[in-house]
C-alpha cells in the first residue's frame, strides 16, 4: 500500500544506518584503544602512529573541544572510552571531579613524570608542559624580563592583546594568580590588565602575534609552542607573524613561570584497560617525549629529553612549583572573577 519510492527510500536509509552502526561495532574484534581527546589529534598523530607500529594496537579517536567528560559520564558503564587526553589541567581535573577516572599504578609513569606533574593517587598524568609566555614586539619592546603582575602596570596602557580570558589557558593563569596572591589581589590584577588592553579580547594566541605585527599592540599572552607552529606551519603568512615577536618567559613576582599541561587519565569503565595502560606508558617513553618536544614544540615532562632549538632560544624554563591540582580547584573562582570585572567585554 505504501508508496513504492518512499518505501525504497526508507529501506535505503535503514540499510545505511545499519551499515554505519555495524562499522562502529566491528572494531571490537581487533586490539584497540579508544581515545577521547579535547586536543586536535592531528597535533600528535605521529606519536599515535608510532604507538600502533610498536604495539599493533589500533588507536580510535574522537575529538571535541567541549563536552567529552560529560559524554563519558553519561555513557556510564558501557562507555567505550579508555583514556581522556586534554590540553589543560582544568579539564583533566574536571574528569576526576565527575568521577569518571580510575587510579593507575605504574612504575614507568611514576618514574618518568615528576611528582608535581601527576596526581598523587594516579588519576591523571601530565604528558607535556606548555608555558604561558609573553609575546613582545621585536621593534617596539626593549624589556627582557616581565612578570605576570607587570601586565597590570599602567605603563602598558593600550599596548596589550590577549585572547578571551574565559579561554582555558587564561583561566588557568588566573587561577594560578589566585593561588599565589588570593582572590582580591587577582581581581585588582584583572582590572589592571583589562585597563591596559589595546582591543577587546578575541581570536587565539596566534592572533596576538598577528596583532603585534600589525602594530595593534606591543605585548600579549601566548603559549610557547605556537611560535614553533607558526614558524614551521603550512601558512607562510603566519611565519611573518612569528618573526615580528620575541618570546619572554614571564614569572610571578618572586616566583617562576606558569605552566599548564597536556594530560592523560584512564577512564573508570575503560573496556581495554591493558591497552590503555600501554598507551599511557608509551606516551612518556623517550621516543614519544621527543616528538612532543620536536614536533609540537612543547616542554617534555621526562627529564633528559632534548628540547627543540627554537624553544630553547626562549631561555630556560623554570616552572612554578605550585600544585596544579590546586590551580585546577580555583578555576571556577577565576572564571567568576573574569566575568565580574567584565574582562572580555
Amino acid at each position: 500500500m505504501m508508496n513504492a519510492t518512499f518505501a525504497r527510500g526508507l529501506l535505503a536509509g535503514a540499510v545505511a544506518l545499519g551499515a554505519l552502526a555495524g562499522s562502529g561495532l566491528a572494531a571490537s574484534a581487533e586490539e584497540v584503544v579508544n581515545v577521547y581527546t579535547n586536543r586536535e589529534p592531528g597535533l600528535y598523530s605521529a606519536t599515535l602512529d608510532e604507538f600502533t607500529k610498536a604495539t599493533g594496537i589500533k588507536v580510535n579517536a574522537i575529538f571535541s573541544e567541549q563536552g567529552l567528560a560529560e559524554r563519558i559520564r553519561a555513557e556510564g558503564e558501557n562507555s567505550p572510552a579508555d583514556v581522556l587526553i586534554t590540553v589543560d589541567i582544568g579539564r583533566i581535573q574536571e574528569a576526576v571531579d565527575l568521577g569518571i577516572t580510575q587510579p593507575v599504578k605504574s612504575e614507568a609513569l611514576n618514574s618518568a613524570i615528576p611528582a608535581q606533574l601527576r596526581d598523587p593517587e594516579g588519576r591523571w598524568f601530565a604528558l607535556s608542559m606548555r608555558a604561558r609566555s609573553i609575546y613582545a614586539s621585536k621593534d617596539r619592546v626593549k624589556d627582557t624580563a616581565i612578570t605576570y603582575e607587570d601586565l597590570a602596570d599602567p605603563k602598558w596602557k593600550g599596548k596589550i592583546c590577549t585572547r578571551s580570558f574565559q579561554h582555558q589557558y587564561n583561566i588557568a593563569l588566573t587561577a594560578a594568580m589566585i593561588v599565589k596572591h588570593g582572590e582580591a589581589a587577582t581581581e585588582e590584577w584583572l582590572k589592571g590588565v583589562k585597563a591596559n588592553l589595546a582591543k577587546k579580547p578575541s581570536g587565539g594566541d596566534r592572533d596576538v602575534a598577528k596583532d603585534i605585527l600589525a602594530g595593534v599592540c606591543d605585548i600579549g599572552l601566548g603559549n610557547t609552542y605556537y611560535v614553533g607552529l607558526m614558524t614551521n606551519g603550512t601558512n607562510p603568512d603566519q611565519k611573518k607573524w612569528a618573526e615580528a615577536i620575541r618570546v619572554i618567559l614571564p614569572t610571578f613576582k618572586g616566583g617562576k613561570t606558569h605552566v599548564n599541561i597536556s594530560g592523560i587519565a584512564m577512564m573508570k569503565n575503560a573496556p581495554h584497560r591493558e591497552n590503555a595502560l600501554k598507551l599511557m606508558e608509551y606516551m612518556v617513553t623517550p621516543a614519544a617525549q621527543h616528538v612532543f618536544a620536536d614536533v609540537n614544540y612543547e616542554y617534555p615532562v621526562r627529564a633528559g629529553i632534548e628540547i627543540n632549538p627554537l624553544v630553547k632560544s626562549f631561555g630556560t624554563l623554570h616552572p612554578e612549583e605550585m600544585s596544579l591540582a590546586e590551580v585546577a580547584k580555583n578555576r571556577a573562582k577565576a572564571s567568576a572573577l573574569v566575568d565580574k570585572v567584565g574582562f572580555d567585554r
Partner: protein
Amino acid sequence: MSTLALTHRLSTTSLRRALNGAPLWSVAVVVAVAALVLAPLVSLVRIAAQGEATLWAQVTVDVLPAALMDTGMLLAGVALLTGVVGIGAAWLVTAHRFPGRRALAALLPLPLAVPTYITAYIYVEIFDSAGPVQMGLRSLMGWTSRGDYWFPEIRSVYGCIFVMSAVLYPYVYLAARVMFLTQSASMIEVARTLGASRFKLFRAIAIPLARPALAVGLSLALLEALNDIGASEYLGVRTLTVSIFTTWLNRGSLAGAAQIACVMLAFVIVLIALERRGRRDRRYSLSTRRPRVTQPVNLTGHQRWLATLFCAVPVLMGFALPVAFLVREVLRRGLSAQVDNAFLNHLLTTIGLSAAATVATLAFGIVLVTASRLARLRLTKTALAVAGIGYAVPGTVLALGLLTPLVAIDTGIGSLWRALTGERVGLILMGSAAGIVIAYLIRFLPIATGSLTAGLERVSPGLEDAGRILGARPRELVTRIQIPLLRPALASAALLVFVDCIKELSATLLLRPLNTETLATLVYGHASRGAFEDGSLAALVIVLVGLLPVIQLVRSAEAGPKKAGGSSAS
C-alpha cells in the same frame, strides 16, 4: 463486565471520530516524536534546576546582563542589515529594470550556501589587522602601524553583525521576493497612476506587503544568529550561546550553563512566535492574491548603476569573496594532494549520515503532517508545534540534553540483550552513528514539517472529500492523494534537510562515534589547530553541496509566478 465493554466501545468510537480516519499508529508516532524532541529539553531543565542559588545569583549579575546586551545588539544589527539588504534588493529586482537585474535576482540567494563559521574564518583572514586589505592600504598610504589610521575592527559585535548578515540576508530576500512577485500588481500600478513617488511606493505599499515575509525571513535569520557559536566566539562576541559554554566549561557548571540555555529558550520562543505570526498573515494574503506580476519600471541615469551596486555588493560579500578565498587556498595546496582516501572517506561519511538523517526526517515529517491533517485532535496539533522547537535549540545544547536519554535507551537495550543472550553489546545508539542521526532528526524535523505543511495547505480539502465520497480509506487518502501532491514539497524539504545536515557542526562534534569525521568537523579540526586554510577543500565542498537547494529555491521562486501568470492569461 458488560458496562466495561460498553464504555470501551464508547471511548473507541469517540476516539475514532476524533482520529477522523487517521491510523492510531500514526498518531502514536506523532506523540512519540514530540516526546523525543522534548526529551533533551526536559533533561536540560532538570539539570538547570539542580544548580545552587548562589550560582544563579552570580550568573544573573555577572554573565546575563552582558550576554543579553551582546545578543540583543547582534540580533538588532542582523535584523536591521538583513532587513534593509533583503527587502531593498528584492524590491529593486522585482519592480525595476537596471543593468544585471536578471542575473542578480538569481545570484542574490547564493550566500545561503555558506555556513556562518566558515565566513567568519575567511573574513578575519581578509579584513583583520594583518590581512591583505589593511596591509595593502598601509603600503599604499605609507602608514606604519595600526595606530596611524582607522579601520573597522572585524573581531567585534559590528564585525559579527556584518559577517552574519552577509550570509543570512537571503532568508529575508527570498521571502520578500516571493511576496513581491505574488502580490497584486494592480495595487502598485494604481499607486503609480496616482503619481506616487518611487519612495512613497516602497514605503506605503512594498513594506506593508512584505511585512509577513519579513517576519518569516527575519525570524529564520535571527534564529541562526542566535544559535551560532562558531562565528561569534571566533569574533569575540560573548552572546548567550557563547556564555553557556564558558560557564559550563570553566566553572564546571553544567547547571549554570543549562540556566543560561533556559533564558535563551525564551528568545527562541519569541522568534518562533514571530515566525508563526508571519506565516499566518501570509497565508491570509495568499488566498486573496491575484497572480499577475508587476511590470518593472526603468531606472534612469546614475540610479541604474546605484541599483546594480546595491544588489551586487551583497552577492560579492556573502558569496563571491568567501568562495574565491576558498578556491585560492585549495589551488595553492594542490587539489590532487588533498583528495586522498581519508578525504573521500570523510566525504562518504558525511553523505551517508546526511542521507540517513534526511530519509528519517522526511519519513517522520510525512507521518507527522498527514496524521495531524486527518486527525482532529488538539494532541496532534500540539505535538506538531512541539516538534518545531528542535530547530531553535543550539546544536551543542541539544547534544548535551540528548546524552542522558540516548544512553538511557542504550542501557535498556543493553540489559535486555544481556538478559536474552548473556552477552554485552555496548552502546548501540551512542556507539554508532544513530545518535547523530537522531540529533539531526530532532534539529531539522521542523524544516520538513514546515515545507510539507505548506505543501499540504495548497491541496484543497475538496480533493480529500471527493476521495472519501468515492470510498477511499484514510490510508489511501494519504498514499494516493496527499503524498503524490506533496512530491515537489518533499523534494525541496529533502534538499534543505540534507544540506543542513552536511553543515551541522556542534551536535556532530559531541555525538559522533570514534574515528568519525564529517566535512564540518574536518574544517573545525583544522581551524582549532590554527590552520583553517588547510580545511579549505572541505569547506568548499560544503559550500558547493549547499548550493544545490539554493539553486532549486531560486528556480522555484523565479519560475513560480511565470507559471501563475500563464494560467491567469489562459
